[in-house]
C-alpha cells in the first residue's frame, strides 16, 4: 500500500484480527451452558431404545422419588395441552413426546425436571417404560414397497411416501439422451452423516409470570424465525417473546431445527415458573438431532462422441427419517439440488426426487451443505469423471472443454437458475498450475508402470447460496430477506445489528469491515450485534452461506442510506449544495476542491448538534435486503492421493483449493472458512457415517464410533483465489462458508477412483474405508492368480 493512499482501518480486503476473539481466548464466551439464572432447574430426557415400538406403559414413581426431581413430563401431559405434536419447517408434523408410538431409536419419551443436573440425570435413568416392538423400516426402497409397515399412521395417506418433486424437461431430456452418442449412468449413495458441531444443542427457558415475558436462550442459527414459530405454535404474544442466541459453538445447520428438548424446556419453565436449562449430551446429539445427506441417486449423462455434455437425468430417493423436518425453503423440498447441472452447459436436464419415511431421526440438510448442494455437486462432479474415464479423456481437459464460458453470464441453466458470474476455466487453470498438474500426470504414469497406486481428482463446483429472492424463497411463509440496522453516535462510533447469527463465521468483524468501507469509519469503532430478537432487526438467520449475500448486502445498503443523509449534512456544514458534494476517499468532498471536506465523524456529530433545519436529527438507517438473485460462488479443487496396496488405506498427499467467492472481505477469515469446509468435506469422503442395522439400532452414535478428523489425518490444505465479483451484490461478494464442504468430497473420491483406474473401477461409494479399496485390489489379485 503506497503512502498517502486512501485507507480506512479494517476496510474490505484487510485481514484484520477478529473482534470476537477477545472473549473466546480468555474462556469468557457466553455459550448456552454458561448461562445461569437464579432458581434455574435442569431438564433431562428419557429416550427410546427401540426404533419402532408401541409404548404400553410409562411409570414415573421411581423417578419422582429421586431426591431433587420435581416433575416428569410425558406425551399424555403434552397431549392435554395440544403440544404432543408440532409442525416442522416443511409443514409436516413431529412429535415433541410420543403418546403411543416411538418411531426412532433415541427418540424422546419423557422429560425429567430437577433442581440439579445430576438429579435430572438420575431421574431420567429412573423412568420406566414398557415397549412392544413393532416392525422396523430402515431401507427407504423397502419403505415404498406395497405392504411395507406404515410408519406415520397419523397421516391420511397411510403411506411411507412423503412427496415427489421434479423439475426440468422430462421428455426433452429423454429424447436428447436417446440421441446422444455417449451415455454414462451411475448409482451413487451418499450416506447419512452428522454435523457434530463441538457444542451440542440446548437452551435456558424462562417465563416471568409477572411481566409475561418469555425468554429463551437457545442454540439457534435463526432466532427471529424461532420467535415467530413460538408465537404461532405456543400462542405466546410475540412482543413478549425474547429469543437470545448468545455465543454458539458451531452450527453448520444443526442448530436450525426445533428439537423436542427446546419445547420441553419451555413447557417445564411455564409449568414450574422457574428457568429451566436443557443441554443434550453428545450421544443424544448424534443419535437424535438432525442428520444430513442420505440420498440414493441414479444419474445419467449424455454427451457427444468428443465429450461435450448434452443431457442430464437424475432420479433420487431421499431417506428422511420418520418425518420431514429438513429446513429447506418451502418451495424446494429437495433444497437446491437442481443446481446439479453444475459448471456445465447441459441443454436439457430433468431431476426428480422422492422422499420416504423410515424409522430414523428426521433431518436431511444439517451439515454445511447449502440445502442439498453437496449432494448435487458430488453427483455431477463424479459423473464428469466417469464420463472422462469412459471416453479416455483427461478429466481436466473434459471440464475445460465443457465449462460455461465467462461471456455466457448471467447464465440460465436448464433447471431454471440464473448464475450471476463465473470464470470456471480460470479457477481450474490456476489450480492446475499451482499443483503442477502435468507433472503429476507424468509421475502417475511412471508409478503405474511400477504398479504403484496414485490418483488425481478434480472438482470444479458451482455453488448456489444467499437464499433468497422473495419471489421464490420462504421458510414457513416468511420471506428470506435479511436486515441491518446501523446507527452512528455523536462521537462518530457505530452500533450495527443484524438479523443473522454467527456461529463462528466472524460477523462481528466482517460486517464491521463492510461498514468501515462504506462509512469511512474505522472497523475498531464499529460494534456489531446479532442474536437478540428484542434488538436485532428481523432476519432469517445464518445457514446455507446466506449471511454475506443478504445481511452483508443490507449493511451496505443501510450505510448508503446513511451516506445519502450524511451528504446533505456535510453540504450544510460546508455551505454548499448537496449536488456539489461527492463521497470520495472516505470523506465528503466538494467537487473539484477535495481538501474542502468533512469526515463521517464530523457529520455524525453535526447530526445531533447542528443538523439542517427541516431535517430529522440523528444518523441511522435500516435496510431489509431482498436479494435479486442467488449468488454462485465456485472453485476448482485438485486432490492427490496415494494408496497403500496392502492395506487399502488412502492418504491425501496434496490438496489445492482455488475458490472464488467474489469480493473478499477478510482474506484470513475466508481462508479459515475454507480450511474448515475442506475438513468437513474430507471427513464424509473417508471417515464419517451414521449407519443403522435392520432393527434400526444406530451404529456410530458416539464419538467412539463416529470419527471426526483430528489434526493428524487432516490434510495440509493449500488455498488460492480468483475474484469474480457478483454483479448484483452491492459489494460484489458471494459468500463462502460452505463452498469447501461442497467441493471437496468429489475431488477426493475422483482421486481414489483415478488411482484405481488400472482395476477398471468406475465408482466407490463414500466413506471410502480402507477395506472397500482392499476388496477391489484383493479381488483383482485373486482373479489374476
Amino acid at each position, binding site marked *: 500500500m503506497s503512502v498517502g493512499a486512501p485507507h480506512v482501518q479494517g476496510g474490505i480486503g484487510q485481514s484484520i484480527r*477478529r473482534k470476537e476473539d477477545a472473549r473466546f481466548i480468555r474462556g469468557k464466551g457466553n455459550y448456552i451452558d454458561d448461562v445461569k439464572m437464579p432458581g434455574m432447574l435442569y431438564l433431562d430426557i428419557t429416550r427410546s431404545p427401540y426404533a419402532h415400538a408401541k409404548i404400553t406403559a410409562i411409570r414415573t414413581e421411581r423417578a419422582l422419588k429421586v431426591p431433587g426431581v420435581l416433575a416428569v413430563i410425558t406425551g399424555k401431559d403434552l397431549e392435554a395441552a395440544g403440544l404432543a405434536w408440532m409442525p416442522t419447517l416443511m409443514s409436516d408434523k413431529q412429535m415433541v413426546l410420543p403418546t403411543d408410538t416411538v418411531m426412532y431409536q433415541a427418540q424422546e419419551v419423557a422429560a425429567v425436571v430437577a*433442581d440439579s*443436573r445430576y*438429579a435430572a440425570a438420575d431421574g431420567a435413568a429412573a423412568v420406566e417404560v414398557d415397549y412392544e416392538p413393532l416392525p422396523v423400516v430402515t431401507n427407504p426402497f423397502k419403505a415404498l414397497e406395497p405392504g411395507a409397515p406404515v410408519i406415520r399412521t397419523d397421516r391420511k395417506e397411510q403411506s411411507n411416501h412423503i412427496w415427489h418433486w421434479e423439475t426440468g424437461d422430462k421428455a426433452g431430456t429423454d429424447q436428447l439422451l436417446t440421441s446422444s452418442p455417449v451415455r454414462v449412468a451411475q448409482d451413487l449413495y451418499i450416506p447419512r452423516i452428522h454435523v457434530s*458441531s463441538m457444542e451440542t444443542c440446548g437452551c435456558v427457558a424462562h417465563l416471568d409470570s409477572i411481566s409475561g415475558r418469555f425468554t429463551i436462550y437457545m442454540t439457534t442459527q435463526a432466532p427471529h424465525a424461532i420467535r415467530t414459530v413460538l408465537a404461532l405454535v405456543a400462542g405466546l404474544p410475540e412482543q413478549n417473546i425474547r429469543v437470545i442466541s448468545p*455465543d454458539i459453538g458451531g452450527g453448520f445447520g444443526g442448530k436450525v431445527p426445533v428439537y423436542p428438548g427446546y419445547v420441553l424446556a419451555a413447557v417445564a419453565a411455564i409449568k414450574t415458573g422457574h428457568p429451566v436449562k436443557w443441554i443434550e449430551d453428545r450421544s443424544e446429539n448424534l443419535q437424535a438431532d438432525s442428520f444430513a445427506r442420505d440420498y440414493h441417486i441414479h444419474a445419467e449423462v449424455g454427451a457427444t462422441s468428443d465429450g461435450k455434455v448434452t443431457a442430464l437425468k437424475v432420479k433420487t430417493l431421499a431417506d428422511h427419517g420418520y418425518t420431514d423436518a429438513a429446513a429447506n425453503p418451502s418451495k424446494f423440498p429437495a433444497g437446491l439440488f437442481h443446481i446439479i447441472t453444475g459448471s456445465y452447459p447441459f441443454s436439457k436436464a430433468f431431476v426428480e426426487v422422492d422422499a420416504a419415511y423410515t424409522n430414523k431421526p428426521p433431518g436431511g440438510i444439517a451439515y454445511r451443505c447449502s440445502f442439498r448442494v453437496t449432494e448435487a455437486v458430488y453427483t455431477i462432479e463424479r459423473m464428469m469423471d466417469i464420463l472422462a474415464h469412459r471416453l479416455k479423456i483427461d478429466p481436466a481437459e473434459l471440464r475445460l472443454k465443457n465449462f460455461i464460458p465467462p461471456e455466457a453470464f448471467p447464465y440460465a441453466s436448464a433447471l431454471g437458475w440464473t448464475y450471476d458470474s463465473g470464470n470456471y476455466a480460470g479457477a481450474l487453470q490456476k489450480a492446475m498450475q499451482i499443483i503442477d498438474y502435468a507433472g503429476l500426470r507424468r509421475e502417475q504414469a511412471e508409478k503405474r508402470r511400477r504398479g504403484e497406486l496414485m490418483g488425481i481428482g478434480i472438482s470444479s463446483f458451482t455453488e448456489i447460496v444467499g437464499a433468497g429472492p422473495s419471489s421464490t424463497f420462504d421458510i414457513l411463509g416468511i420471506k428470506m430477506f435479511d436486515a441491518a440496522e446501523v446507527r452512528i453516535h455523536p462521537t462518530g462510533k457505530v452500533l450495527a445489528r443484524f438479523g443473522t447469527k454467527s456461529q463462528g463465521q466472524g460477523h462481528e468483524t466482517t460486517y464491521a469491515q463492510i461498514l468501515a468501507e462504506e462509512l469511512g469509519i474505522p472497523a475498531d469503532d464499529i460494534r456489531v450485534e446479532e442474536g437478540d430478537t428484542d434488538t436485532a432487526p428481523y432476519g432469517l438467520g445464518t445457514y446455507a452461506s446466506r449471511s454475506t449475500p443478504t445481511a452483508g448486502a443490507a449493511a451496505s445498503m443501510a450505510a448508503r442510506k446513511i451516506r445519502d443523509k450524511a451528504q446533505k449534512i456535510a453540504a450544510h456544514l460546508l455551505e454548499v449544495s448537496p449536488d456539489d458534494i461527492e463521497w470520495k476517499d472516505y470523506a465528503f468532498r466538494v467537487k473539484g476542491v477535495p481538501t474542502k471536506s468533512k469526515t463521517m465523524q464530523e457529520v455524525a456529530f453535526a447530526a445531533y448538534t447542528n443538523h439542517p433545519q427541516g431535517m430529522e436529527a440523528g444518523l441511522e438507517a435500516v435496510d431489509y435486503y431482498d436479494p435479486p438473485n442467488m449468488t454462485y460462488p465456485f472453485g476448482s479443487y485438485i486432490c492427490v492421493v496415494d494408496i497403500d496396496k496392502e492395506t487399502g488405506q488412502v492418504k491425501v498427499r496434496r490438496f489445492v483449493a482455488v475458490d472464488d467467492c467474489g469480493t473478499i472481505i477478510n482474506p484470513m477469515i475466508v481462508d*479459515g472458512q475454507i480450511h474448515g469446509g475442506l475438513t468437513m468435506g474430507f471427513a464424509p469422503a473417508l471417515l464419517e457415517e451414521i449407519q443403522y442395522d435392520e432393527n434400526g439400532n444406530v451404529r456410530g452414535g*458416539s464419538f467412539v464410533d463416529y470419527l471426526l478428523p483430528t*489434526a493428524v489425518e487432516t490434510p495440509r490444505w493449500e488455498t488460492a483465489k480468483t475474484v469474480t465479483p457478483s454483479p448484483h451484490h452491492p459489494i460484489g461478494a458471494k459468500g463462502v462458508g460452505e463452498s469447501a464442504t461442497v467441493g471437496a468430497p468429489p475431488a477426493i473420491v475422483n482421486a481414489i477412483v483415478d488411482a484405481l483406474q488400472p482395476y477398471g473401477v468406475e465408482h466407490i461409494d463414500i466413506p471410502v474405508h480402507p477395506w472397500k479399496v482392499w476388496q477391489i485390489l484383493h479381488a483383482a489379485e485373486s482373479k489374476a492368480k
Partner: protein
Amino acid sequence: MAAAARPVSPAASLTSAGGTLVHVRVTVNGQPVVAEVEPRTLLVHFLREVLGLTGTHIGCDTTNCGACTVHLDGKPVKSCTVLAVQTDGRDVRTVEGLEVGGKLSPIQEAFVECHGLQCGFCTPGMMMTATALLARNPNPTEDEVRDAIRGNLCRCTGYVNIVKAIQLAGQKMQTTAAGAGGKP
C-alpha cells in the same frame, strides 16, 4: 505464598440430597479452594458449576473431544474423565489462568494473530494442550504439533491456523526468553 483456602459450597446444581460427600482441597489457577463434593462429581463440572470457571467446555460424553482439557499438576488432561475428588492436594490450571495480571499469554495472542479460532468452543482446551506442549518442546515441528493436539477436536478451523498459532507462540516465547536472558 500460602493463601488462605477459599471454601466453596458446591452449587446446588451438582449435589443430590442424601449422597455422602468427600472433602477436597485443590489449588485452582493458583488459588486454594476447599469443598465437599459427591465423589461422582466430574472435575469439569466442579470447575464450571462450583467455581464458576466456564471457560472449560464439554463437547462429548466419551472422552474423545478434548474441549474439557485442563492442566493437572502441569499435565494436560481431559477434565470430563477425572473426578474432582482425585484432585485433592493437587494443582489445576484452566484457560482462565493463562493470562497473568490481565496480560494475555503468548499462546492466546498467537491464536488471535493467526485466526486459530472460529466458534471458540474447542479453543480453551486446544490452548491448554498447546501450552503444555510448548513448555516441554518450545520449537515443535508441524508433525509434532499435530500429534500433540490429536486429542483436541475442532470442527471449524480445519487445524491449519491452529498449527500456525502454536508454532508462532513457540517462536515468540523463545524470542522473549532470549531477550530476557539479555543475549546480544
